[in-house]
């Protein structure tokens, strides 16, 4: 492949992936409103388009035309930079996520992934860890006590749960022997006894999966860990002083982070794009992507389901749970996995 073809294919892939991600973000909001309405015995959005399907577009237009308020007491450079930081890192993290196998389009072939790195997983962790700055700086630069408390809570919570999140992934890495997301998924192909898939969740990493799931909810500041924006205590938390598109950027960053976390859970624990493949060749190329999207959708639905079912933790419960329960469990999981792998070798 010449350098020109490589650049053109990469640019096309980047555009497609970002467009799909932003659409997924918009429709996750729609999903959240619809499912929450069902749970509370309401209808949710119905007026704009069939089943309210055009509601995200209407919301987007509204965000653009709203008045963009900048309070006189904010520290302006960081106040403007914070939502940009949040959104940029939330979108960048998708760049190493693989969506499917190798596909051939005419004379060209490509992996369904923007780029494959041999440290892919670490790249995702690094980028998401930088996303904390958006929230922390938003809280500080707003110069408002509710914002500051929200920002402090968010950063403390994200640092705490990042530890157990990272450690819960080590078991998977020991099993796969690689940091490349593509190789981790390839290691999960095949089945046990012909019908149970060899996904990591069925392959000794069940505890790690639940540790990952809980930490991921805390990392993305979702209920039951939504203390950074607890309405009853902090007005709206770190984005109290934001309006119009700046607020929308925080909102989009939150949902983009949820999509990334759901993609990672799918890749690491649910076998990525593995699933039953059948039918004509064109369908066989598309089936892996379908399975991948289905699993990601399952996690997005779970997010919404949990949010409208569980109440919020108290702050000391949150910290105690992270450091005294999840962290020791994650370490124990690493030790047991390492012992079993070493014994088998």
């Amino acid at each position: 492949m010449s350098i020109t073809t490589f650049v053109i294919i990469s640019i096309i892939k980047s555009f497609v992936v970002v467009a799909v991600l932003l659409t997924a973000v918009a429709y996750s909001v729609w999903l959240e409103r619809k499912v929450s309405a069902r749970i509370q015995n309401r209808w949710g959005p119905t007026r704009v388009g069939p089943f309210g399907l055009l509601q995200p577009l209407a919301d987007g237009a509204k965000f653009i035309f709203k008045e963009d308020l900048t309070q006189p007491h904010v520290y302006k450079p960081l106040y403007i930079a914070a939502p940009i930081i949040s959104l940029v890192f939330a979108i960048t993290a998708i760049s190493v996520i693989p969506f499917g196998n190798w596909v051939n389009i005419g004379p060209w072939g490509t992996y369904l992934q923007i780029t494959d790195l041999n440290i892919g997983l670490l790249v995702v962790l690094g980028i998401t860890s930088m996303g904390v700055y958006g929230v922390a700086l938003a809280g500080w630069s707003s110069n408002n006590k509710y914002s500051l408390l929200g920002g402090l809570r968010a950063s403390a919570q994200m640092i705490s749960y990042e530890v157990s999140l990272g450690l819960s992934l080590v078991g998977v890495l020991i099993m796969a022997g690689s940091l490349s997301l593509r190789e981790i998924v390839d290691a999960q192909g095949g089945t046990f006894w012909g019908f149970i898939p060899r996904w990591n969740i069925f392959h000794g990493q069940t505890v790690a999966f639940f540790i990952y799931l809980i930490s991921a909810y805390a990392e993305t500041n979702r209920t039951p860990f939504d203390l950074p924006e607890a309405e009853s205590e902090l007005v709206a938390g770190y984005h109290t002083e934001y309006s119009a598109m700046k607020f929308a950027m925080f909102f989009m960053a939150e949902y983009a982070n949820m999509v990334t976390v759901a993609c990672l859970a799918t890749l690491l624990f649910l076998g990525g794009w593995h699933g039953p493949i059948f039918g004509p060749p064109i369908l066989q190329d598309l089936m892996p992507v379908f399975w991948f999207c289905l699993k990601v959708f399952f996690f997005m639905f779970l997010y919404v389901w949990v949010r409208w079912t569980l109440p919020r933790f108290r702050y000391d419960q949150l910290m105690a749970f992270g450091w005294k329960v999840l962290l020791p469990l994650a370490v124990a999981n690493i030790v047991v996995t390492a012992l079993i792998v070493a014994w088998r070798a």
Partner: protein
Amino acid sequence: MFHLILFLFFGVICVAGAVNLLVQSHPINSALSLIAVMASLAAEYLLLGAEFVAAVQVIVYAGAIMVLFVITIMLLNAGKEERSKGSRVAILIGVPGVVIGGVLVAWTLLHRSNAEAVPIGALKGDPSDIARLLFHDFLLPFEVTSVLILIAIMGAVVLASRPEAVARGPRKDG
């Protein structure tokens, strides 16, 4: 060629961030400059071919340690720094001293040591290579360092906790 341009670009950002760190009078701006320095250093490692070191640089330094810096600044609500006029001795002796020292170190490294310059992208930065070095060839120094860090953490906890809490023992109500 493209790599070299990128390398120089991030090198300039790194030095500019370091200078900005000293010049800024508000602590949060200094902390953010330090993050820029760390992140551009990670980009330099990546360009040299040390991918693992680059990722760890971002996760540990830019992602974890600097967040703690920023939180501390936010919690203490540290205001602007008060400038002194600066001493004449520092300008007359300190600045030329730093320049001479830097030139000496650079000259020694370039001409008197056996180390060679690494061409771009040639560094062995594969995670498995680093794992073999850390957990096989240098296992004892690595483990001793981790114990040293553990001791430092325990020392910090003892110093930070109130003396009456230490004397009373662990709290029962948890």
